[in-house]
C-alpha cells in the first residue's frame, strides 16, 4: 500500500490552493464541538491485509454445519437415541425375548403379566411383550422401504419435470396432481382389496409409494427449478458442461437437502398408515405380527382389559414420535432458509 502514498508532499501543496466549497465544509475554523478531527491510534485496531483469508477458522461446509447444528439440538439427541434403540429392537428381537410371537396358548388368555411376560397375554393367549417387540420389525421395514421408494420415484419425476420444464413439466405435473387428488388411505383400501391373500409387506410398501410419492415430487421439482437458475449452472455451461451433466453434478446434489427433509418427516406417517391399514384388516394378515393388527384385535376388549391395546399403541406412538422429531431436527439443520450463507 505504501507506494500509493508517495506523493504526500503534493498533498500539502494542494491543500493550500484549496478553495473550500462553502456548502461542503465549513473549514477548520468552524468545526462544531465534538466533530474535531480524530484519528485512532493504529495499535487499537491493527490493520489487516485487504480481504485476507482466516486460515485458522475450522473448515465447514453444508454437511459439517448441519451436523454441528444437529449435535447441539436436544430434539435430535432424544430422537437419535430412540431411533437407534428401535432399529436395534427390529434387527435383534431375540435379544429381548426368546419366545415365538405366533406361539399362543388359549389357556393364558388375558392373563396378567408375570416374570418373563411383563405385558401379560392377549385374548388368544399370545405374549403381548413378544408381539410388541416383533411388531417393530414390520413397522420399521414398511416405513423405511416406503420412504426409500417414494424418494426415488418422487425425485425422478419431480426432477425431470423441473429440469426440462415446458411440456414435459406440464404433463408430469398434471400426472402428479392426479395422484395427489386421490386420498392416500382411500386409494390404498381400494387397491389392497385385490391382494387380501398376500402376506408380504411389499404390497403395503408399493401401495403407500403409489399414493405417497407426489409430495416428494413437488418438493424435488421446486427445488430443481430453484437451483437450475443459479449462476453456477450457467458458469458450468460456459465451461463446456452439458445440461445433463449439470443436472447430475450440480442441480441434484443441491436439491438433496430438501428431499432428505421431506423424506425423514414423512417416514413416521408411513408407519402410521401401515398400522391404520392393518387395523382396518386390509393390511397385513394376522400371521404377520404388526402393531396395527394387534391394536385391531385388542379393541374389542378395550373396556375390560385396556392394557392389551396399550402396549402396541405406545410402541407405535413412540416410534412415530421419534421419526417426526428426527425430521424436525434435520429440517432445522438443513433447511436452506434457516441456514446463513
Amino acid at each position, binding site marked *: 500500500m505504501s507506494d500509493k502514498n508517495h506523493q504526500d508532499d503534493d498533498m500539502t501543496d494542494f491543500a493550500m490552493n484549496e478553495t473550500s466549497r462553502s456548502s461542503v*465544509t465549513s473549514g477548520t475554523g468552524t*468545526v462544531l464541538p465534538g466533530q474535531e*478531527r480524530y484519528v485512532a491510534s493504529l495499535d487499537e485496531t491493527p490493520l489487516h491485509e*485487504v480481504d485476507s483469508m482466516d486460515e485458522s477458522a475450522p473448515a465447514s461446509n453444508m454437511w459439517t454445519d448441519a451436523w454441528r447444528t444437529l449435535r447441539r439440538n436436544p430434539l435430535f439427541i432424544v430422537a437419535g437415541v430412540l431411533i437407534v434403540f428401535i432399529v436395534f429392537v427390529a434387527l435383534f428381537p431375540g435379544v429381548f425375548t426368546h419366545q415365538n410371537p405366533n406361539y399362543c396358548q388359549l389357556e393364558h388368555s388375558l392373563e396378567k403379566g408375570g416374570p418373563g411376560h411383563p405385558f401379560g397375554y392377549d385374548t388368544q393367549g399370545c405374549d403381548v411383550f413378544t408381539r410388541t417387540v416383533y411388531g417393530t420389525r414390520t413397522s420399521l421395514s414398511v416405513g423405511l422401504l416406503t420412504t426409500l421408494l417414494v424418494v426415488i420415484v418422487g425425485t425422478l419425476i419431480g426432477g425431470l419435470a423441473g429440469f426440462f420444464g415446458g411440456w414435459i413439466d406440464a404433463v408430469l405435473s398434471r400426472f402428479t396432481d392426479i395422484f395427489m387428488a386421490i386420498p392416500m388411505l382411500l386409494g390404498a383400501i381400494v387397491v389392497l382389496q385385490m391382494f387380501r391373500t398376500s402376506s408380504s409387506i411389499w404390497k403395503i410398501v408399493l401401495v403407500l409409494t403409489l399414493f405417497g410419492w407426489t409430495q416428494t415430487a413437488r418438493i424435488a421439482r421446486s427445488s430443481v427449478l430453484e437451483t437450475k437458475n443459479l449462476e453456477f449452472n450457467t458458469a458450468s455451461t460456459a465451461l463446456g458442461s452439458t445440461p445433463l451433466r449439470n443436472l447430475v453434478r450440480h442441480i441434484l446434489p443441491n436439491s438433496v437437502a430438501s428431499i432428505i427433509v421431506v423424506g425423514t418427516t414423512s417416514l413416521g406417517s408411513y408407519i402410521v398408515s401401515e398400522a391404520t391399514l392393518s387395523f382396518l384388516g386390509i393390511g397385513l394378515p394376522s400371521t404377520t405380527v404388526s402393531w396395527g393388527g394387534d391394536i385391531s384385535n385388542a379393541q374389542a376388549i378395550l373396556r375390560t382389559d385396556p392394557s392389551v391395546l396399550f402396549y402396541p399403541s405406545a410402541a407405535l406412538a413412540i416410534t412415530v414420535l421419534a421419526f417426526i422429531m428426527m425430521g424436525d431436527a434435520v429440517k432445522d439443520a438443513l433447511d436452506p432458509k434457516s441456514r446463513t450463507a
Partner: protein
Amino acid sequence: MSDVANNDIVNNADAPVLPAETEDRLSAMQREQGPILDVKDLKVDFITDDKREVHAVRDVSFNVYPGQWVAIVGESGSGKSTSAMAVLGLLPGTGHVVGGSIKLEGKEISHYSRKQYEQILGEKMGLVPQDPMSNLNPVWRISTQVKEALKANHMDISHEKRSKLAAAIAEAEGDINLKNVDDETFLGSKELPGLLEAAATALDKAGVRDGAAERAMARFKQEGVPGSETRWRVAEELIKAGVGDDEAWRIAKKYVIGSTMDDRIAGLLDEAGLPDAATRARQYPYEFSGGMLQRALIAIGLACRPDLLIADEPTSALDVTVQKKILDHLHTLTDELGTAVLFITHDLGLAAERAQHIVVMYKGQVVESGPSLEVLQHPQHPYTKRLVAAAPSLASQRIISAHERGENAEALMEHHAKGEDTLEKSEHIITVNHLTREFKLPRKKEMFKAVDDVSFSVKRGTTLAIVGESGSGKSTVANMVLKLLEPTSGTVTYEGEDISGFKGAKLLDFRRHVQPVFQNPYGSLDPMYSIYRSIEEPLRIHGIGDAKSRRKRVEELLDLVKMPRSVMQRYPNELSGGQRQRIAVARAMALDPDVIVCDEAVSALDVLVQDQVLRLLNDLQAERGLSYLFITHDLAVVRQIADEVVVMQKGRLVEHATTDEVFDHPQQQYTRDLLDAIPGGKLKLGLD
C-alpha cells in the same frame, strides 16, 4: 421507469450553496442548540449460536448537529449499519447495546424500551432503508403505506410541521412573516382550481399581463401541490407575482383551508420527487421502479418530519444516475426542512460529496473522523488512506485532475490505457456485428428489443467495457458473446469464425478460450463443491491431465489469484465475496483462455476488495495478454480497467470510443449524465 423525466423542479447539482452569512448563522445556531444526536463510546454485542459474544461495535462516538449531513463510511462488516440500528433501537437478532450512551436532543435513549422507542421513531427519527425492493409491503398500495406512517404518529395532516432549526433559520432571516398558526395550513386538492382561478383574476387586476402572467400561472400550477404547499407560501408567491399584500393574503386565506389525507400523501410523495404523485400513490410497489420505490421510502421516512433521518445505504441498490438524482433531491429536501441526516455508505467519494462530517469505521471501531474534505485530502489512518486510494470514483477523479493540471496521469493508473493507434493495429479477437436480440414479453404482442443493432470488436490484449444502466441490454450482449443465448439477428465472430455454427468439439474449443466471470459471487460457485473441485471442474470437463497434474494446476491457479493453497479443502460459504470472486477468476483462468467476459464482476464488492480484484485482472492481462469484455454500470471502474468504452442505452449503442476520449470529450448527453453521476465528481482532490 420515469426516473429520468422528473426532477425538473430541483435539479441544481448537489448541495445547494447557501450564502455565507446564512451559513455562519446556521453554524452559530447549531452550536447553540447542541448536537441532535450524540453517541458516546457505544458498544454493541451480538451473541452467536454457541453463546460467544461478538463485539460488533466498540467504543464508537460521533455526533450529528441539526441540519447537518454526517456520513459513516466503512466496508461491509465494519459495524456502520449496526451503529445506526442501535441508535434507532432496531438491532436485529441477538444484538444489544452493552455500553456507552446515545443521546437524542440531550435525552439518553439507549435504555429505552420498545414502547418508548415507538414514541420517538418516525416523529423524531426517520429511516430510509437500504433495499427498496424488500422494504415495502407488496400487497398494499403505496398510499396505504405512507398513511400508516402518518397514522402511527398521529400526524396532523392539515398543517405543516417544521423542525426547530428550519423555524429558527426562517425567523432569523426574517423573510417569512407568519401571522398565526393557520398560516401553515396545507392547500387541499378541492380548493386548487378555485385558487388558480382567483390567482388569475388577481393577476389580471394587478395589471400583470401576457407573458409575465402566464409564467406566474405556470409556476402556481407547478408549485401548487395539494398537501405540500402552505398558506403563507401561496401568499408569498402571489405577492412575488405582483398581487397586492392584502389581496394575496385574502386569496390564500380563502382557498388554503387544509388538506385531506390523500392530499397529504400525494404532497409527501411529490416532495420526495415522485412525478404524478396523486395517481402513483394508488399503485402497488410492483408497478414502481427501484428508484421510485426509494423515493416512496424517502417520503415515508420524512412523513412525520423527523429532526434526524437515518439513511442506510439508501441508493446502493440503484443505478448511479438514479442514485445521483435521488440524493440531490434528498439533499434539497432535508435542507429545506432542516432535517439532519446520518448517511451510511461504503463509498468514500459519495460520503465526502454529500456530508460535512465523515466518520470512518473499521472492524467495529471509529478509525478516523473529521470534516469531510479534510479527511479526504489528508487521510491519516492507514485504513482511510487505503480507502482513498481504492475508491474508483476518487481514482478516476485523480486522473481527471491530473489531466487538468497538465501532469502525466499515467503514473496514477493501474491500467495503462492503450492509445487509438495501438488499438487500431491490434487484431480483433471478438467481433460483434449488428447484433440484435428480441424477447417476447408476457401479455404483449410486439417483441421487446433488448439489444438493438450493436456492433463493436474486442482487440487482442485489450479491454473493452460496455457501460449502461440496468436494462440497457449489456448483459444480454455478454450472454450472446458467450454463446449462452442465441442472437435474433447479427453475428458474433471469434477469431474470424461465426460462433453460431459451433457445435460439439468446436464449441468445446470455443468454451475453452472464452470464459466468463459473473456478477454474483454468492451464486457463481456451487455451494456443494469444495474450492478444489470448483477450480478443477473445467479441467475435468475438458479431460485435461490426471489427478496429480490437476492438483498442481489448481495450486498454481490459487497462487495466481493470491489465495492460500489451504483454501482448496474449504467450501464457498467460508469465503467472503471478494475471495469467491477471486476463486471464480481462478476457475476462468484454469483453461488458459484468450478472452474473459466479466459481467459486473466487481459490482457487488466493497471498494477495497473491488480494487484488489481489478488489480488482479490488470496484472493477468499484462502477464498473459488476455482480452477482456468488461460489463459494468459504473463508469468510475471503467477508467481503472478499460481501453475502449461502449456506452449502451435501452439496447442501443450510443457511444463508442477510447476510454480517454469518452472521459474527456463525451459526445452524447447520456454519457455526460453517466459521467456526472460518478460520486465525488465535483470534489477538489489532492493528488495523494
